[in-house]
């Protein structure tokens, strides 16, 4: 496995900029998630690492080697797609052994290694089957085994779980995550599903309009979003604004005091996750408009006297609010993040 570095990577299509000045490193053995809205440059970044797109500017390095202009078949990159892209003219075993065959590995050895991987992924008995006859989850496992068989410098996963049902997705997510860790694979995981990225990845890069908004561990990105875009994209957020004065800020419906505000000049922006609000008799008033049951949690929308909506989340078993209630809420400052 290798450490993969992107240095000032740009990609333009005519006047359109797809990716702008990307600078990051996927460390050896790390799984880096790349998330962002449609058209933000996630897949273009992945394709530049794989060699299917040539950057307009910048460098792609595998360890210290510059591979920017190395063709895809010579990069030693594993690819796993949402559509699986399995070769239906070959058996499952032949699919997994295909890359080894291209490397010139002997027939016996490549069959043995392919079978080992299939066993590891719990589909050892499917080697003789046609990929078409397998379920979505099984096909995704074959795709993963095929990509891992060549012991790639980096494994690139492009929305690999999209299209699978929720239960299977959760199971496969855990299995895949454990396997990548066990094998020490360097991986780039592109997804639009932030929850999946947080569960699977060691670090997450949030992309927007072709540039990185924030890169960090899942808890950092969730708890300390760099800006309102990240706060709104990763999870649900209440963006609260007010004029800072010393260590306090008047948000209109309540006044908040915190030493972190001393560093803010003028307008202060506070990011409050839905979990940051509690029902408290000494708090501020809000009218609950609707309540949605989400299983373990309930999500409520409450309207402040000035018309602003707040999104709130409470544990289901401790149901404290109902639709049309007027409740008194308090903001837990430990769960609030101040952005510049």
């Amino acid at each position, binding site marked *: 496995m290798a450490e993969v570095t992107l240095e000032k990577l740009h990609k333009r299509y005519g006047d359109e900029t797809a990716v702008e000045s990307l600078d990051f490193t996927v460390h050896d053995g790390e799984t880096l998630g790349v998330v962002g809205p449609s058209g933000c440059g996630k897949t273009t970044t992945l394709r530049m690492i*794989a060699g299917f797109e040539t950057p307009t500017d910048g460098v792609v390095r595998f360890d210290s080697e510059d591979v920017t202009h190395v063709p895809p078949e010579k990069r*030693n990159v594993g*690819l796993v797609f949402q559509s699986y892209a399995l*070769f239906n*003219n*070959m*058996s499952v075993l032949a699919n997994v*052994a295909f890359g080894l065959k291209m490397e010139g590995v002997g027939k016996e050895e490549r069959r043995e290694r392919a079978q080992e991987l299939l066993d590891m992924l719990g589909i050892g008995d499917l080697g003789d089957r046609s990929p078409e006859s397998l379920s979505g989850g099984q096909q995704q496992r074959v795709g993963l085994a095929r990509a891992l068989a060549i012991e790639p410098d980096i494994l690139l996963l492009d929305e690999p779980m999209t299209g699978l049902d929720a239960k299977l997705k959760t199971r496969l997510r855990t299995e895949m995550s454990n396997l990548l860790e066990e094998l020490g694979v360097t991986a780039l995981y592109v997804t639009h599903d932030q929850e999946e990225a947080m569960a699977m990845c060691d670090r997450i890069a949030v992309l927007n309009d072709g540039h990185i908004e924030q890169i960090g561990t899942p808890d950092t990105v969730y708890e300390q979003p760099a800006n309102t875009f990240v706060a709104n994209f990763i999870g649900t957020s209440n963006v609260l604004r007010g004029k800072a004065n010393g260590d306090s800020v008047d948000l209109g419906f309540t006044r908040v005091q915190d030493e972190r505000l001393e560093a803010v000049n003028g307008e202060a922006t506070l990011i409050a996750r839905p979990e940051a609000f509690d029902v408290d008799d000494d708090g501020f008033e809000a009218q609950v408009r609707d309540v949605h049951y989400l299983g373990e949690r309930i999500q409520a929308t409450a309207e402040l006297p000035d018309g602003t909506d707040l999104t709130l989340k409470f544990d289901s078993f401790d149901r404290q609010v109902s639709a049309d209630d007027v409740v008194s809420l308090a903001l837990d400052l430990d769960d609030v993040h101040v952005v510049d």
Partner: protein
Amino acid sequence: MSEDVHDTAGGQGVVARIDGLIAGPTAKAVVLGMMVFVLLLLMVPIVFTFVASFAESAAGALPSGFFTLDNWRTVLGLGDYGVQTSVGPGLAFSAMLATGGMVLNIIIGVPIAYALTRYNFFARDWINAIAILPLVPGIILGVAFLRTYPENAGSALGLIVGYALLKSPYMVLTVQSSFQSMDLQQLEESSRSLGASWPRTFLTVIVPNAKDGIIAGSIICWTLAAAEFNFTYMVYARGPRPFSLFLFENISNAPYLQSAAAISVYFLIVVAAITVLQLVGNRGFSTSSDR
């Protein structure tokens, strides 16, 4: 107001009834019935002709005097009278020409179908239209060939090229529909990331995955080329008499029962060609084990 409600409810009832009819067993029976009717419509003349080829007389409304092989003997050049031309050499020559045309169609048609499906390029829609529409009738292409290549138009090579040009839309169309059902870009990229060069990817992954389309296209191209009359009639100059001309002579000059035998020979050849192409195609594309 209540009338509106009633109307809406009535409308929904009609829609539900239509839905039920479309999805229910009645619909299945109607579709099956239509299929059987169309098949019968196609099969009855073929079966009637085939059966008639074994009759002694066609004087009445229905052929009579079964069972004789005289008509077949005559058509195959084994009888004492009739056309007196053996079908053998013409048949072999036509089979060779049709196979040549079909191979040429595979070599040219498959990459064209791939490019049209996989890439966006200038005037793609126009090229697509030209590639899949059988624009030029055989007789026109024949005249064009004679004017352009007066020396070679009637040769075996001229006939092969002509057949390939005339039948190429069928190959492009069937292979294109196979390609359209795949994610070509991701298949290609998977293969290349695993170390296969582009030509290897094309030959070992892309083409075998389009086998159904290629087999179907080959069958159509071969059978239509084997019986292509207009172009052959216009340009044929030398070599054994192609089968389509042989058929024409038998049908136009021989009695009805001998024509029936000649047509039956063609039907049998088509069935044999389809069987062979299916078998060869399936075996040729099968890479199910890691060889």
